[in-house]
């Protein structure tokens, strides 16, 4: 399967471990990542707040790059997925389309609306399928209870994003089960991580992150896993701040989605970038026993 790889900003920068794990997993499950050096940032929801039409145009340009190559777009971030998908939806509004098409024409770009945006989670569970992933598992994550944390922009607004239930998604839990781990169901899995207001009012953002971490723990989770590097920043990168705000320890290891898949497929913690986390993942790794993989 060939897909245009849209890593997004964070996976190329402070969340580089997400890119490392994505490449590692893609190779094992048969996804060829076709790279484009000219993709720009999705706007992360912030450019949309400052100038919605500009944001649509920037993403239509990204979508056009993939379209020209005849490829669908692979994302590894809930927010990128949401922003690029929303651009596809907004381009169906004739007024927006006219303005964006006009601007794109001036830079020699034409977007025909054909590019589909697919998050790695969707590719693994729907296109490849958990039935094919399960036999690839070399180190079943037995004994590990994982709370999936979806990230808002992967599931909402449902009307625009289409497919799946925004309130009761299950793809991530299906995947976690296929890897041999036990998915934990909790309210927080479809809630917000707080990241969008981390720069607006940090303690409020921290409190929101802590609420979801506490909820996952209360339902038995040993670790959380997320398909969004922004959620990862909030849940892992700022977990120490969240603990300070709520006044108790959190100590919750948080995996990027492909890191969890990679561990089950036999990747080492180093290959998957686990030492880059701010919260140590040792306690979760201990649950799945030796990190050595049978030959």
């Amino acid at each position, binding site marked *: 399967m060939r897909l245009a790889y849209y890593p997004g*900003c*964070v996976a*190329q*920068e*402070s*969340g*580089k471990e997400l890119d490392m794990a994505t490449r590692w997993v893609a190779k094992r499950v048969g996804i060829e990542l076709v790279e484009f*050096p*000219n993709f*720009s*940032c999705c*706007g*992360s929801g*912030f*450019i*949309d*707040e*400052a*100038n*919605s*039409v*500009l944001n649509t*145009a*920037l993403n239509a*340009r990204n979508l056009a790059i993939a379209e020209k190559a005849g490829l669908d777009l692979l994302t590894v971030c809930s927010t990128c997925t949401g922003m690029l998908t929303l651009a596809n939806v907004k381009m169906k509004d004739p007024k927006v389309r006219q303005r964006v098409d*006009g*601007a*794109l024409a*001036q*830079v*020699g*770009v034409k977007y025909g609306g054909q590019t589909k945006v697919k998050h790695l989670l969707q590719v693994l569970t729907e296109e490849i399928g958990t039935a094919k992933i399960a036999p690839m598992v070399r180190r079943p994550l037995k004994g590990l209870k994982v709370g999936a944390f979806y990230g*808002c922009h992967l599931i*909402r*607004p*449902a009307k625009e994003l289409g497919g799946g239930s*925004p*309130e*009761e998604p299950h793809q991530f839990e299906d995947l976690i089960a296929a890897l041999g781990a036990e998915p934990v169901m909790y*309210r927080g899995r479809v*809630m*917000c991580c*707080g990241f*969008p*207001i981390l*720069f*607006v*009012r940090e303690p*409020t953002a921290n*409190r*929101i992150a802590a*609420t979801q971490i506490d909820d996952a723990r209360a339902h038995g989770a040993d670790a959380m896993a997320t398909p969004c590097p922004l959620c990862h920043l909030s849940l892992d*990168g*700022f977990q*120490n*701040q969240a603990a300070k705000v709520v006044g108790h320890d959190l100590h919750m290891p948080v995996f990027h989605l492909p890191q969890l898949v990679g561990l089950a497929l036999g990747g080492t913690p180093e290959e998957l970038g686990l*030492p*880059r*986390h*701010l919260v140590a993942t040792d306690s979760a790794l201990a649950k799945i026993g030796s990190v050595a993989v049978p030959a």
Partner: protein
Amino acid sequence: MAEEGLVHVPIDLYRFDPATDKAPRYQRFELDLAPHTPVLTALLKIREMDPSVTLRYSCRSAICGSCAMIVNSKSRLACQTPVGPELEAHGRIVIDPMRNLPVIRDLVVEMTGFWGHYKKLQPHLIPDPHHPLPEGRESPMSPAQVEMFKETPRCIACGSCYSACPAVEADPEFPGPMALAKLYRFVVDPRDGARRDRLLRIQPGGLWLCLRCHLCTESCPKDVEPSQRIRDLKEMAIQLQGATENGSRHAVGFKENIRERGTLNELKLVRQTYMPLDMLARIPQGLRMARRKPEFIRTPPKIAGLDEVEKLYQILDDAPREGT
């Protein structure tokens, strides 16, 4: 076995009377109901069995907004939620009161906080002294003007969005989705004389605490789409007064940041958002990040085709924009 055409419905109902109970509990009721029976009808049958069960309801037609509650973890109007699909998905029906509002008894919550935020917005037309409303008759609007309200006039103030909102849960200053959707309705009303003031007044702690998680939009029984209208208000606020606080500085800073390299310069964004003192306070956390994630303090390379991005900014951002 339930009668033909009926299904057996186990209902776990939240019960709590703060005056007498130490903690909330769930009480199990078992009913045989037709699958299309609304949850509200089921609750009224339960109340016949146990008159102490307390709930709010009125119209039974999804108009009054009184019976908003949590059905199997989702914000719903009980009167328009049939038991059948809930039973199919969950095998039972768990009913809780709305969140983010204190429980008075069982499903009845104290809504003063919700209304307080709403009232503060002056949710009524404030006539423009320069363009007085016509005396003694209606002030008509054109269909195009009415369209600017989007779906906001459909709001029935049921409180579902307020109950679903994680910003409300975490920060009492945030007015909540309903109040902001109503604010939007007045900000775009061409007859209102306080449109600018409304927008300027709400900003600190108001607009920019919205997480754009869209939980409000999903919970709304009337498809008002509060999260989209809050986004609209943010863009209007920036156009009206520029970047004046962390939230708007972050949005505008982000936009300018991407213009320079096509990809995010993370460290620079921090500088673009925070005032110097805020910046200083965050140095320890920044160093902690940089130790594990050295890319955080590196300047990323420019993307190929940055000239195209620059041109799009020139056409769509530098030129004056239409709208409010």
